[in-house]
């Protein structure tokens, strides 16, 4: 049995801002642009009480919370803090898989300090982070990544929650499906319609049934419903692409329909990239026809795509390449790859987007 810890900083960007500027403490703070097209990259807990969440448009956020203070992000500072916490993790194990600046999985089964209790390690890590950065983190401890992640989320902020092997299955059974990591809003809605509301409901489904309705992910759902997740903690993990796709209830035939359906996919991918400062140079469009023939079209630019306008334009250019369609389209997907580390971009002469 493995010992996995998931560490997640509490309201990371916003907490760093409150730490560095006492005037912001105890107040609703949103990190991100305040302007018309800005989005909230992170919200302080005070702001969350008003219903302000990350990835929400700044306009909506300001309406929900009129006293909301907008702060420009300082990614350099966040990166510095991220390196500090990373160093803390590495005192305990080389098996650290960062998910973003403020989140990581640790495999402490065989740790460098020879501490037997993963809960004890989590407690020490939290204390060290607090001491070195004056910031709080939440930790989840369990025997696989899926449960560790759910555990860290269970008691936020400044939480420490343990799901022991004996409790795993029971814990999942009572958990509503929308709280499962890996089950998004759309999938959760689909499951609700099918009467699958909790982990137990999910566990009662046949694997073949889940695969039929959710494709490859169905198999993953089948196993996590039983508390099984064999994915290793992978310290080498580097994100290679960001993508989103959608399968449609009815096949798309017309140009107008395709353009309409591509729009939310463009939104999805861009929102994510924008939030995590991910810049890529290759846009790929994936199209699956009703006879399951799969094709893709892609375009690579000389320098990373920084604006939604450019991203959108290239996406529609790619769509134009497959128009007019000869047969119905059942799936559209869009991804951004050839990602560049924002650190490598500093001092770089940017190139025109063509």
């Amino acid at each position: 049995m493995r010992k996995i810890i998931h560490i997640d900083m509490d309201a990371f960007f916003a907490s760093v801002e409150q730490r560095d500027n006492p005037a912001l403490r105890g107040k609703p703070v949103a990190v991100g642009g305040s302007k018309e097209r800005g989005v909230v990259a992170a919200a302080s807990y005070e702001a969350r009480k008003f219903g302000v969440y990350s990835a929400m448009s700044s306009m909506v956020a300001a309406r929900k919370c009129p006293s909301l203070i907008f702060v420009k992000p300082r990614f350099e500072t966040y990166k510095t803090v991220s390196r500090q916490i990373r160093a803390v993790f590495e005192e305990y194990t080389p098996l650290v898989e960062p998910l973003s600046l403020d989140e990581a999985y640790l495999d402490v089964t065989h740790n460098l300090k020879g501490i037997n209790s993963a809960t004890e390690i989590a407690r020490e890590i939290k204390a060290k982070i607090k001491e070195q950065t004056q910031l709080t983190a939440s930790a989840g401890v369990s025997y696989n990544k899926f449960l560790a992640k759910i555990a860290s989320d269970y008691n936020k902020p400044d939480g420490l929650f343990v799901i022991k092997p004996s409790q795993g299955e029971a814990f999942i059974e009572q958990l509503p499906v929308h709280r499962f990591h890996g089950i998004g809003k759309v999938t959760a809605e689909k499951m609700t319609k099918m009467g699958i509301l909790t982990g137990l409901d999910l566990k009662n489904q046949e694997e073949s049934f889940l695969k039929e309705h959710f494709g490859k992910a169905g198999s993953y759902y089948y196993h996590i419903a039983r508390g099984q997740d064999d994915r290793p903690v992978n310290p080498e993990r580097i994100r290679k692409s960001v993508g989103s796709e959608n399968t449609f209830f009815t096949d798309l035939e017309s140009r107008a329909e395709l353009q309409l359906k591509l729009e939310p996919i463009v939104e999805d991918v861009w929102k994510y990239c924008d939030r995590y400062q991910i810049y890529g140079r290759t846009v790929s469009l994936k199209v699956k026809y009703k006879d399951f023939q799969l094709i893709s079209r892609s375009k690579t630019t000389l320098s990373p795509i920084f604006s939604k306008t450019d991203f959108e334009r290239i996406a529609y250019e790619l769509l134009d390449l497959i128009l007019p369609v000869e047969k119905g389209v059942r799936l559209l997907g869009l991804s951004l790859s050839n990602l560049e580390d924002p650190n490598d971009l500093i001092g770089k002469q940017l190139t025109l987007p063509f």
Partner: protein
Amino acid sequence: MKFVVSSSVLLKQLSGINGVIANNPVIPILENFLIQLDQNLLTVTASDLQTVMITTLEVESSNTGAIAVPARLLLDTLRGLPDQPITFNVDSDTFGTEIITENGRYKLSGENPVDFPKVPQVTKSLSVQIAADVLGAAISNTIFAVSNDDLRPAMTGVYVQLSSEYTNFVATDGHRLIRYRRMDVTSDSTSTMIIPRKALNLLKSSLPSDDTTVTADFSQANAFFSFNNIKMICRLIDERFPDYENAIPQNNPNVLTINRGELLGSLKRISIYSNKTTHQIRLKLSSNDLVISAEDLDYSNEANERLMCDYEGDDMEIGFNAKFLIEMLNNVNSNMISLEMSAPNRAGLIVPADKKENEDILMLVMPVMLNSYA
């Protein structure tokens, strides 16, 4: 074959077309001028296969014939001679060429003129008349932004878009882009082509600076320019020019309006302190306030200046390559200019405040990424 010509007249004509000749041509005969005589009319041709320049002049003769003579040797000889009538005496069997002057006799070994590559002829084409000074302005306003990158051949020339309303001359090296539009150059049919940089540079240096009419004919593969007694033929770049219109940002709410000379002066001083390879400078903009700064971390040099300006928009910091800005500002003939921006990672637009008649110029420049992402 024999003819008499003024040494200075011949030197002037040859100097005008000599630039075509490459240093190490692919085929050795291209180190020569092709000289063709038809009684009083002497035609001289220089070529590098891509570009051909032809000039004609009057000489005293009653012969016809042709010869290829080494360009460098002939030019050096003419440059060293005092102005005088000189006599060329060509032996059509051996291709030996003798120049007889008051100072003495010079013998050059020529080559068989038949070996000189054929010059493309105008075929069914599109014809446009342009005043020499207008064409000259179009070239000098764009050529500095043409790319040197042979991996993207489409960008190694100036893109010309002819239409019935105006003509665009567009150049880009991927980092900046110039679109120079003339309302007084039009064509009945729309057409586009990419003219290589070398040809345009040669054209620029041989064009008169008055309104002499230049006739430009374009066929599928070649462009033909003729004016006075000079003709130039160049091969067009057969590539697709980037879809540049889409790269022009449409919404640029942050507008800096400033005296061109003052901005230029400041940039020149500040850039001395910038990093020697990136030439990165920083513009810090807030309401009616501009601070230009640069630092070279390698030598811990730094400089900053505050300038009077008119700025409307969000507070922002944006980095640019100072060399690009200076080069572009040097090519604008307006007292005041505006720099229109949207974000620190999107192109800035330089637009002259005073517009000249029949002319519209748009310059785009991509920023340099700064470390503090605003």
